[in-house]
């Protein structure tokens, strides 16, 4: 480091950090405000209007009836995809035969854009929450599956030999060698899956539901309740940020060894 960190006091550093963090958001809100306060801004309410409407709309019963169930379905679908993706990914990563057998089918299924599954699943499983979970899970299982396969296949052969020599096999081999080796790729897959899950939750609710966040946004739009519609968008954005932060915390714990390893590899 070129400058002496002691020459700046701690509160001053915290302030400058906060300033850097909030500068761009503040600027954007400013631009929004300026744009919205012009005339003909029926479709673009001011941030102030959106903020007060947000309180009215979401700090009410609606949060329980529309937001919470959506989040529940989102997490259920994501968890299902994680379990299926990691499970199948480990099996496929370990078995060459299984990979050869399933490759063409997987390539096809992966290429199908998940939103087109919505009409199909509507017919097959109906309009209820099972359908929404199915859409979310079937769409976000792919990044988990493919990244897990890749992670499992890239297990270091020396570590693998070490396990063979010390006769480490079965469950212990799976948990101490395979899953841990693949964990960086698995986490990458899960992160991608999480953002896909949010998208699919919204889409499935917009198309085929009578409740939920996506449904609420569409309903507001149809009723020309424009500020309310905006609050739905803001809430979805906040949800995405919260999930991403939460995921970051989990990732930090699971992959602490990986960051340490990479840091030392770069250092020396």
């Amino acid at each position: 480091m070129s400058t002496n960190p002691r020459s700046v006091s701690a509160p001053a550093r915290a302030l400058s950090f906060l300033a850097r963090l909030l500068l761009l958001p503040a600027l954007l809100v400013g631009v929004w405000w300026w744009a919205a306060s012009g005339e003909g801004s029926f479709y673009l309410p001011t941030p102030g209007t959106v903020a007060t409407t947000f309180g009215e709309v979401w700090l009410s019963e609606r949060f329980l009836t529309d937001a919470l169930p959506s989040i529940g379905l989102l997490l259920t679908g994501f968890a299902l995809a994680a379990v299926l993706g990691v499970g199948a990914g480990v099996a496929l990563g370990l078995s060459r035969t299984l990979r050869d057998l399933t490759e063409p089918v997987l390539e096809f299924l992966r290429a199908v854009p998940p939103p087109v599954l919505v009409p199909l699943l509507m017919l097959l499983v109906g309009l209820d929450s099972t359908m929404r979970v199915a859409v979310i899970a079937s769409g976000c299982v792919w990044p988990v599956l493919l990244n897990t396969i890749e992670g499992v296949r890239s297990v270091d052969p020396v570590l693998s030999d070490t396990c063979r020599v010390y006769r480490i096999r079965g469950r212990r081999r799976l948990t101490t060698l395979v899953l841990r080796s693949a964990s960086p790729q698995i986490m990458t897959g899960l992160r991608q899956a999480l953002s896909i899950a949010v998208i699919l939750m919204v889409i499935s609710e917009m198309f085929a539901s009578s409740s939920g966040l996506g449904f609420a946004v569409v309903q507001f739009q149809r009723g020309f309740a424009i500020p309310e519609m905006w609050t739905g968008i803001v809430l979805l954005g906040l949800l995405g940020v919260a999930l991403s932060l939460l995921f970051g915390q989990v990732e930090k714990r699971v992959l602490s060894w990986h960051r340490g390893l990479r840091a030392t590899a770069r250092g020396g």
Partner: protein
Amino acid sequence: MNRDIRTHSQEGPDVLDVNGLRKTYASAGRAVEAVHDLTFRLRAGELACLVGPSGCGKTTLLKCVAGLLAPTGGTVAVAGHPVHSPPPDMAVVFQEYGRSLFPWLTVRGNVELPLKEKRLPRARRNALVEEALEAVGLAASASSHPWELSGGMQQRVAIARAIAYEPRVLLMDEPFAAVDAQTRADLEDLVRGLWQRFDMTVLFVTHDIDEAVYLGQRVLVLSSAPTVVQDDIEIDLPEQRDQLTTRSAQRFTELRARVHGQIQQAKRAST
């Protein structure tokens, strides 16, 4: 061919029997013959060093003995049983020591892992781990992760893991390549000490002629590829060895010269 190059006087059954071993790597349309024809035996409790030019197939041989690599021809038997997969009670210190440690486990976790698989009770595991880490001078680093250690320290973790396992056969592939001269001398004495204390058979691969002569009861010299056993030298130095007196002994110098001569010859034969 040379089935028994040299018969050693002592009794004891063969723990390791390598017979006509041949290994050809087939890679991308090209065949590389790494080991041409190797035959040798180790008796129970023997400490043999394996020297040979770089690329002559020492690691390949070790992997075949460990059951990690299927030979193209010939047989390997450990304690009378043909080797098809890693035999029980065998530990290996790999040449790529750094990559053989689990980065997500601590030093203690790495040493303990094989003991868990052996289903030893916790108290016994702890005692073995403590003892092994103490022996390699890493007791203070037990809760570090491997990537927080220097190369030489990582190598010692791999050694500690091998000795904590209490193997009957110990294979070591250039285990002291990354340590400084002083640590190396200490580790040499450690290996001899452990070998004398526990009833182990040790096959020790090294580049270093002095090390081979100092450590071994026997030194096997491999030729360069296509590899055969070029010479099998009995090291008739006294059992009690120490860095100063042994290395300055007249006999040490003679043996050293002989191994050196054989390696030179091995290199010349290939060019």
